[in-house]
């Protein structure tokens, strides 16, 4: 989400690998229509927030990015985004066990929209493992929610060298399409390595869906609900970037969740975009990495 323009074209070069894996998993595990997905294998929970306590998000787990990014040297957060982030309950609050991140159309600090960005920087970071969230997304032209990660050394080792894993990005004007990506040196902004997944006979804004990755030393597996839809490996990055790109995913990352309005990825809202728009997060969970699970 930082300094980048995602390429909308499918860039997966190992789609067949993912397909074979997902077919295998389907055969072994069968179909399930509850929210227990079957594509992830790491099961040792090490960090979670189920947002059980109504009110402000737990400050021991979540911090905020505030403003429009100017303070960080990134006006519009590097993407020409239109919102001003706050930590007010109007933009981020927990109600009935669900975190609500709400984008509003209102005049605020010279901006037309407000919203929130929550992050675990300096509070929680982890190298490898399974990261997932159960989210109901908003909708409408110019609405851009994301659940993503940045390399924890981003202050010393600025983007894109720090690395970025986008577990979920979505355009409000494409309510059935999920985008999962990685960014790093040699593959970022418009040249990120990215893949879209289209939900059949359903939408992301009418119910909760689970967005996750399983991440190890030499792979990142992307899944949504019970579908594994992509795997990115160091070989993919090498092939995709003609050997220029570097795998920067062997270090801890922290988690971010935000709801942007406008920006390069989605374009501005239009007259039909309804406000407020809310991203509902039921939980965020992180599981420990266990190499033996993947060696079997």
């Amino acid at each position, binding site marked *: 989400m930082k300094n980048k323009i995602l390429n909308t074209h499918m860039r997966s070069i190992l789609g067949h690998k993912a397909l074979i894996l997902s077919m295998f998993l389907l055969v072994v595990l069968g179909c399930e229509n509850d929210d227990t997905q079957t594509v992830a294998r790491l099961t040792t929970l090490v960090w979670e927030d189920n947002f059980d306590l109504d009110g402000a998000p737990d400050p021991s787990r979540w911090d905020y990015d505030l403003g429009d990014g100017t303070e960080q040297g990134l006006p519009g957060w590097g993407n020409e985004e239109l919102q001003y982030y706050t930590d007010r309950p109007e933009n981020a609050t927990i109600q009935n066990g669900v975190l609500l991140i709400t984008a509003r159309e209102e005049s605020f600090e010279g901006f037309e929209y407000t919203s929130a960005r929550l992050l675990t920087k300096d509070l929680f970071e982890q190298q490898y493992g399974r990261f997932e969230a159960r989210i109901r997304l908003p909708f409408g032209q110019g609405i851009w929610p994301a659940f993503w990660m940045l390399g924890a050394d981003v202050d010393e080792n600025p983007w894109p060298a720090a690395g970025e894993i986008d577990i979920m990005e979505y355009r*409000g004007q494409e309510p059935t399409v999920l985008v999962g990506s990685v960014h790093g040196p040699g593959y970022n902004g418009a040249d990120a390595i990215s893949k879209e997944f289209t939900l059949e006979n359903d939408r992301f804004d009418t119910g909760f869906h689970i967005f996750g990755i399983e991440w190890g030393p030499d792979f990142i597996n992307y899944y949504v609900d019970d579908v594994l839809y992509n795997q990115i490996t160091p070989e993919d990055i090498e092939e995709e970037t003609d050997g220029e790109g570097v795998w920067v995913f062997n270090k801890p990352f922290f988690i971010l969740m935000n709801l942007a309005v406008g920006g390069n990825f989605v374009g501005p809202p239009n007259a039909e975009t309804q406000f407020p728009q809310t991203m509902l997060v039921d939980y965020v969970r992180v599981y420990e990495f266990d190499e033996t699970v993947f060696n079997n």
Partner: protein
Amino acid sequence: MKKYIDFKLRSVVVLGLGILLFSGCERDLSDDVRFATFNTNPDIFTDDPVGLTDEFFESFDPATGANPEGFGTDNDVAFEGSSSIRIDVPAPDDPDGSFIGGIFRDRGEGRDLTGFDALTFYARGSTTATIGEVGFGNDFGENKFVVLAQNIRLSTDWRKVIIPIPDPSKLVQERGMFSFSAGSQSTNGFGFTFWIDELRFEKLGTIAQAQPSILGGNEGRFPTTVGGSLTIGQLQQTFNLESGINQTVIPAPSYFNFKSSDPNVAFVSELGEVTVVNTGTTEISASLAGVRAEGGILVESSATAQIISIFSDLFADVPVDNFNGFFENQTTLGGVVNENGNDIIQYTDLNFVSINFFSEENRIDASEMTTLNLQIRVDEAVDPGDFIRLELNNFLNGVESGSSFTIASSELIANEFVDFSIPLSSFEGLTDRSGLGLLFFVSDGTISSISVDNIFFSVE
């Protein structure tokens, strides 16, 4: 006493049997309980009509200008398979009729469409025209659950058209499978051809974010007297499609649940007809499939007449001569136009213009009225110095006298309707108002494009 105990015991036994029955199955009431269901076939036309009446296409009445000759199937053109429906839209001067339209009906008792969420088809035009209306639910009978979508754009390549069903649970037995109506309005009077293929009901799962509305989404007032009536109109249901596009359809009133907050003042029928039975106030609202519709109306019923409406969505209007008199030295163009299903008055090249009701029989006696209400939208930027001057001209014993009230630029908003309630006492020079005949809008060119709506006099 003995009898009483017997009775109690029997009911316990019966209740016990009931529990056994229920615990034996998870969802069904019992195998013996079965509701009548109708055909659930989704297909209407694939390569042939599917389960439709023998005549297949039933034209609207030629007496209304419908041209029954332009309908057929085409074995040379198909989106899928070998055949499609071909519709030749006539020119306005075609002796057989100036437009084409009609319906397809299920040949049986009707179909159960409750498992679907949209009518879909592929369409292609000989040119980039629009089809005036397409929909379903018209059965040349009760037409209880008619749905129409307007101005469907054609491309010269095949495009999928999706007409959402406002509330599928209503369609347990529907005979009206398809309806359409097309003229050459979008092609400057030139006839054209369009094809339809793979016409069917579908369960897409991506029809979402329902936004129903009544009365154009407006909150209105209905000052009236006992015996007054009003039909809730401008019914719409808008869904967001997978493409991100908002598709609006016009559902029949029976899709809505109308409600009056105080039925002792006014009640509302399932067709949205409001009948005022007492003095007092009541709020009329509606919902569709459990979603509260935007828009509503506050009925204010009092003992004496409270309203004279010139042009409004909410009240019965009095007759007028015209909405643009095209006077000498007048540059103003325009009149009544339909905007998103809502009639408004739109003027361009404005210097001055008037709504005319000066013919003797149309003059308005507003002696009892106290207020002129109207909505004005400036359809361009509002600059300092801009103004709209309203002028009311009265005819008394054959003598015409003018009066005026000026709305300053600070009270106008670009591209947004602003409500004005202007006391008639604020009109300079308006001494008598027993024979009002003209309402002028004057900008002297400071503003050239405005839209006006909901013009009425009221007693406040």
